[in-house]
């Protein structure tokens, strides 16, 4: 699956969450804490929708993610 994170294209494995995908890119300043929908530290803009909980959202082909 290809997704765009902060303007760059990345390959994400099947059933990868958006938060895990962002962590895999080593995006600066991204510091999620809990990985299970509690802490709200992983929120990102996904396909234009702001403040989405990235750890609870599976990647989808062609997705666009902005981490700030």
């Amino acid at each position, binding site marked *: 699956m290809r997704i765009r994170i902060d303007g760059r294209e990345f390959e994400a494995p099947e059933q990868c969450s958006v*938060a*895990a995908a962002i962590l895999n890119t080593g995006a600066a*300043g991204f*510091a999620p*804490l809990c*990985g299970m929908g509690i802490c*709200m530290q992983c929120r990102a803009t996904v396909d234009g929708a702001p403040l989405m909980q990235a*750890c609870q959202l599976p990647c989808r082909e062609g997705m666009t993610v902005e981490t700030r």
Partner: protein
Amino acid sequence: MNRVVVIGAGPAGLIAAACAAQGGRQVTLVDDNPEPGGQLWRGGGGGVARQKLEGVNVALLNGARVVAAHGNTLTVETRDRAIALHWDQLIVAAGARERFLPFPGWTLPGAMGAGAMQAFIKSGLDVRGKRIVVAGTGPILLAVAALAKDKGAEIAAICEQAPAWRVRRFAFHLSMAKILEAIHLKRKLRGVPLYYGTWVREAEGGERVRRVILSDGRAIDCDYAACGYGLVPNTELLRLLEGRENVHAVGECTGIGGYLKSAVEGAAAGYRVAGDDSQANKLRPVIEQARKFAVRLERTFAPRAELRSLPRDETVVCRCEGVAFGALRDLPNWRYAKLHTRCGMGPCQGRVCGPAVEFLFGWKPDSTRPPVLPARVDTLMGGSDA
């Protein structure tokens, strides 16, 4: 009508839903994760969880968060709509979350919970070639380290804050199955340094975590610091439902006891709402047993007093609102702190800093009001019935 709603599709909720449905009840299972399975069976597209529901008639509502409860109606929000869900019997299996205790550097990228590391690996985090320090407390540390190692990480150290003698005494009372499980994990972790009575004092590294300093002064280089201080029950919904009849709380949200406790409590509640009290009563001795285990677990892995002295004045305690330890430590109570510093007033609604300030200052949680989770304005305007 006898509509059963189960909140939470982890082990307790799944088993409760299955038992209630087998007993002929119409069951709706609501869960906020993208797939059923809770934290134990996270990942893999919810396959394990779906097996539990095979052949029973349970309507599964994924990615659905219960944001409010009023009378016998839950307000549920999904990604694109709001649903008013009516119940006659409600089973709450809201699970638990990790307890985080603030230390200098815990907000750096690369620092996260131990359970969080497990959840992220199950959700696609690539740890191949990464050096990881797993720290904090509880049996979860070995499980996380084993999983990460299995996925190609190098475990730089495991730091268990509980002293070795206490963990040994705990192990002495374990069931054979649990002892075998522990032996299996330890075999997988052969060669990995495991320090008891040791904790992470600080994480350093500027842009992201590069090393941690342990309580004994040792510095260990790492890419990730996975540090969690056990689990705390998710009680927000239960507090909102306080005093209401036909509400059954099961699993980790009633006390941290692991899979067995969740399974038997879930099953008993499922039988009970299906009207099969005799079957439910048969599980009583096992539930008692499981609850005793929960008490031992809590005692063994209770965070030690020294952890209260880790945060410095500038160490952030409430990450949502950016409130530092120094702004909180002289305040009289949480209500005061909330009003005057906004500690706990951000989008996580104190789920992270609440257990921390309870441990640090003894502040008890105060009132719970809807919405118990961030919710869209239109959800609170009233959803369509379902």
